[in-house]
């Protein structure tokens, strides 16, 4: 899914317990970590609402800095949508709308 395997290798030696950060939209099943940022950047994608509104919706749903997150399932076609474990909840969302959520992975 993502092109981060290179980073993972290089990061692994330096800080074994601090992983690398990925956008939730690029995460694969099994990735787990902590949300470190929920942004409202213009990403050139059409979400049907503006980015500030998308950010507020993500926050209200519990995608907030400090929350533990794990990608647990994904759809068959194009690995989309994804289901995540977000603290005590399970939430499904589309990858298109997950790009603003930045996750610090546990594993290097």
């Amino acid at each position, binding site marked *: 899914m993502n092109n981060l395997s290179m980073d993972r290798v290089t990061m692994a030696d330096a800080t074994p317990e601090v992983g690398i950060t990925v956008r939730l939209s690029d995460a694969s099943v099994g990735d787990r970590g902590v949300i470190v940022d929920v942004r409202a950047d213009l990403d050139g994608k059409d979400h049907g609402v503006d980015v500030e509104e998308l950010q507020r919706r993500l926050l*209200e749903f*519990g995608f907030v800095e400090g929350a533990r997150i794990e990608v647990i399932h994904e759809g068959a*076609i194009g690995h*989309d949508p994804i289901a995540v474990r977000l603290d*005590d909840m399970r939430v*499904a969302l*589309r990858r298109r709308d997950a790009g603003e959520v930045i996750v610090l992975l546990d594993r290097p």
Partner: protein
Amino acid sequence: MSQAALSPARVALVGNPNSGKTALFNALTGGRAKVANYAGVTVERKEGVVTTVTGRTIHVLDLPGTYSLRARSPDEVVTRDAVLGQLAGETPPDVIVCVADATNLRLVLRLILELKKVGRPLVLALNMFDIAQRQGLRIDLEGLSREIGAPIVTTVATRKRGIEELVAQIDATTLAAATLDAQTWREPDAGEIRDAHREAQRLMKAYVRPPERPDTLTGKVDSVLLHPVWGLVILLGLLLVMFQAVFTGATPLMDLIDAAMTGLGGLVAQVLPEGLLRSLIVDGIVAGVGSVLVFLPQILILFFFIIMLEDSGYMARAAFLMDKIMGGAGLHGRAFIPLLSSFACAIPGIMSTRVIDNKRDRLTTILVAPLMTCSARIPVYTLIIGAVIPHRTVGGIFSLQGLVMFGLYAAGILSALGVSFVMRRFFWRGMSEPFMMELPTYKKPDPTNVARNLLMRGQIFMSRAGRIILPLMVLVWFLSTFPYAPAGATEPAIDYSFAGMIGHFIQPALAPIGFNWQMSVALVPGMAAREVAVAALGTVYAVGDAEAATGGLSARLAAQWSLASGLSFLAWYVFAPQCVATLGVVKRETNSWLWPAVMFGYMITLAYLAALIVYQVTVALGGG
């Protein structure tokens, strides 16, 4: 007792979706509102009454669930308006009862912080406490209550535990609240939402100890049911089993009802003298209404499956699995549950589209919902399939008739996707709104809830037969009987009746799609509701065929309809907008006559085209 103690109080149930508000409402008021294990079941406000032990009346308001008061979709607007008292002529509730799922507190704690700003006294109902206890979840109720400044009552809504305590607490809270705080709520921005989350997180850390035995079942089940490949296979398999069961499982019971109806007709025929009254009862009422009542077992089997899916928590999983396909057709992710509810009936399906925020996403879903095969089509499909499709087994286990039924359902689903695709592609371009959906933990369906829902469905079906079909059948009988045939008539008497005239008048327009005049005339009362067409056929054929009154309607049709006409009638009913109540609901939900008109127009066009193609092709292949 003081005056205040006797004046009625008003409370509103507010909370996250799927926290058990409606279950609590039912427990409090003895109501029968719909409860199911997915987010977005309740889309309307509903009021009920409970009386305290002191004889005071409390008006309870059940509301749609929400994650914040910052309403975005029409159902959340209902909640916000009720909480803030923004509707014309309405004041805010005296007490807000926040209903929380005790096993999932983080989001609701943030909502509570928002609710506190409304300035009304708050009571927290910690629901699903049975599950919390089973998991060994420890909550410091006293500490939490002190911090949020609201009394806490633990409840188990489905077992009616904690209800008396909750009522007593509501009563006490309304009396204690001498001065109300000012309403200071306004839409929070991102920073304020974050701050509230931080506060909620602090409360969680301080007062809630993580469960000793967390639920592991949901994860295990999901690893199978949400598997990219097996998940889809199981979903398809489930649907296939459901339609097979509807078709084959009901047969013994249906035969029983059919025999009872025939027996009843025979009995009436023996008791009553030959004449108009006997004809009205035997041909009009028993043959007409009876031909629809026969389908009660099928309707109940279908609803049994749907209720089990809804109550177990599978619905949200099915929506997850289908999301990519639906998104490809331009449908919003939240459209899945309204569309699946439309298998029962398009009317609640269309109403549940209120959970969709965006107007265009919502309209698209409303317009395609009636293409999903509603339960009123079952009588039509079953009757015609039974009459024209041979009774054979395919591949050892599947009945050919069941497969045709499955095909008709598939045709409905595919056409809904197709129509939505065309709409989004050519009329309403642009992306649909973000889609986030909670996947609830699985629960064992509650047998009383299932039984109660089934009973209610049965009642609705029977009362439709009584209120709509019965009077219409008297009318159809009248039209098929009068005027009498002239002396020395050569054709059957019914050809000279009003029904015959109407049928012969419409039939030329329907000749290209292979409808005979009886089918044509059945379409007219069939506008009221789809299954009425079956009743009308029952009556028209019974009156027209009074001498040779042997065998049921299906046998008569088998003898008189060609395969091409039967298939054409089926194709017609996949698309035909034959239900005024649906058109009425579309008018109400969209607040305009334009959309019901658009719906009627496109559906009837598709119906005619589909029937035309099916008829002409079947005739060309030698099935005429």
